[in-house]
């Protein structure tokens, strides 16, 4: 179950999307994220769906793999839906004792769920198609202007990439420790909330210990290879915009323009 989480993982493959410049992809992701929260109508979400399906097809990542990434957060999505459905005031269309379902609630709950799904798919698409190295480069370059006001761009980018890089590792570790404790009779799935929380100790303690150990090892390994971040660092592969990015920008503009053209945003 835990191994289903695909957020932050890189999926190596050869596709136009993989080849795009990371800076462009990061900016495009931001625009996409804004767009999904701005869209207000069913047709609007139709356009978003078309757009994202087109991107997934282009990226040559199996849809199944991306959908698998949604499984672990299904609970959050359902939760958001339910909260919206039951707690939005408005015209009541269904009532049973204290439970009230309003049409506004249904509407909002539905959009909330859709938005979360699109949000996760979009952001996973960014990390799935961008190697951690490129991602760091991209983030760093984009943060560069802020260096003037004292923002440690390189260090920040490095930190982000390292965290992304370790998500799958930590998940694997969690899975491994869980299994080892289950083999010793630990039960993570039943019992009262208090008991369950207590039951997490045998999982969390080893997890933290190994995470600290890993961080320590990594720091040592970087230092041993004379890593020094920031100034005067040159790159083996310098980022360059290509024609693909130009075409990509056109597609993006087309997407945003069509959302505006059909008055699907507020």
């Amino acid at each position, binding site marked *: 179950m835990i191994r289903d989480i695909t957020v932050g993982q890189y999926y190596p493959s050869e596709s136009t999307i993989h080849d795009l410049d990371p800076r462009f992809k990061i900016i495009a992701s931001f625009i996409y994220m804004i767009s999904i929260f701005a869209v207000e109508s069913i047709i609007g979400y139709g356009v978003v769906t078309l757009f994202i399906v087109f991107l997934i097809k282009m990226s040559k990542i*199996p849809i*199944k*793999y991306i959908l*698998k990434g949604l499984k672990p957060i299904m609970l959050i999505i359902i939760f958001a839906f339910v909260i919206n459905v039951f707690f939005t005031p408005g015209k009541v269309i269904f009532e049973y004792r204290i439970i009230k379902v309003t049409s506004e609630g249904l509407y909002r709950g539905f959009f909330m769920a859709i938005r979360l799904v699109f949000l996760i798919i979009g952001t996973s698409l960014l990390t799935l198609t961008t190697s951690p190295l490129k991602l760091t480069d991209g983030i760093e370059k984009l943060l560069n202007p802020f260096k003037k006001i004292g923002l440690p761009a390189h260090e920040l980018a490095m930190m982000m990439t390292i965290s992304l890089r370790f998500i799958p590792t930590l998940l694997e*570790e969690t899975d*491994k*420790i869980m*299994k*080892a*404790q*289950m*083999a*010793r*009779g*630990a*039960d993570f799935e039943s019992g009262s909330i208090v008991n369950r929380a207590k039951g997490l*100790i*045998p999982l969390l*303690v*080893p997890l933290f*210990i*190994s995470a600290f150990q890993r961080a320590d090892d990594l720091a040592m390994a970087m230092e041993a290879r004379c890593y020094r971040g920031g100034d005067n660092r040159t790159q083996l592969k310098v980022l360059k915009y290509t024609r693909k990015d130009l075409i990509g920008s056109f597609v993006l503009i087309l997407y945003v323009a069509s959302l505006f053209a059909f008055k699907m945003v507020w």
Partner: protein
Amino acid sequence: MSIKIENLSYIYDQGMPFETIAVDNISFDIENGEFVGIIGHTGSGKSTLIQTINGLYKPSKGKIFINDIDLTDKKVKKSDIRKKVGLVFQYPEYQLFEETVYKDIAFGPKNLNLKADEIDIRVKESMKLVGLDFEKLNEVSPFELSGGQKRRVAIAGVLAMNPEVLILDEPTAGLDPKARDEILKQIEILNKKKKVTVLLVSHSMEEVANLVDRLIVLDKGKKVLDGDVRSVFKEYELLTDIGLGVPQVTELINKLNLRGCNIKETVLNVEEAKNAILKQLRGDSND
């Protein structure tokens, strides 16, 4: 406890483009009290296989019966099986979490809802089994121990549950020869004296040659050989082919045979090799 495995397959990331068939259509039976070695090259599926036996992975195909209870049956509670089938993971040190060695070893028995005095007996017993000094170490934090001691605590943590089947995944990897021999010795005693069924996973022929009754050899997820140690070692070429080889003494006899000796029996240790060679020499001089 007997284990029966029928056409078992396990596939990681099934349906994904990078799916791995880790266990491929394996069948075997293990009788109560047997001491079986499961051996195979890195990545041959040993760890995956034993985790399905423990009910931690749901088989992609096939069935597993533990004492005629079908593990793949949804109604069977996996936790009940795990109480009887103890599994020591590869590099089990990471499972330690308690403040003291005592509490950590007691974690398993506690989950079995045993009484405090019974737990106490079990902790003492299992510490003795793995060669840890109870008086000296029971109040120490497991994180202050050396790597080898941590390994022993982790193994003791599983032994304390008094499993009827004990599965160990490379319990001696990374240990010094003395510690290795001690731990293997204790496992052997458990098997012989207490009639615990033992499955020992290893990739070293030297280690299992003189220990187990029966060997199951895996290669790329498939079972390629299954039988008593001597009959398995007869397949010298196949074993070399899949990157396992045979113990050095066995290989020595093979080389001698290639150079014109004619030693029929498969030898497993130096003593047997000495006798075989002496016999051969005497035989030659008699001609």
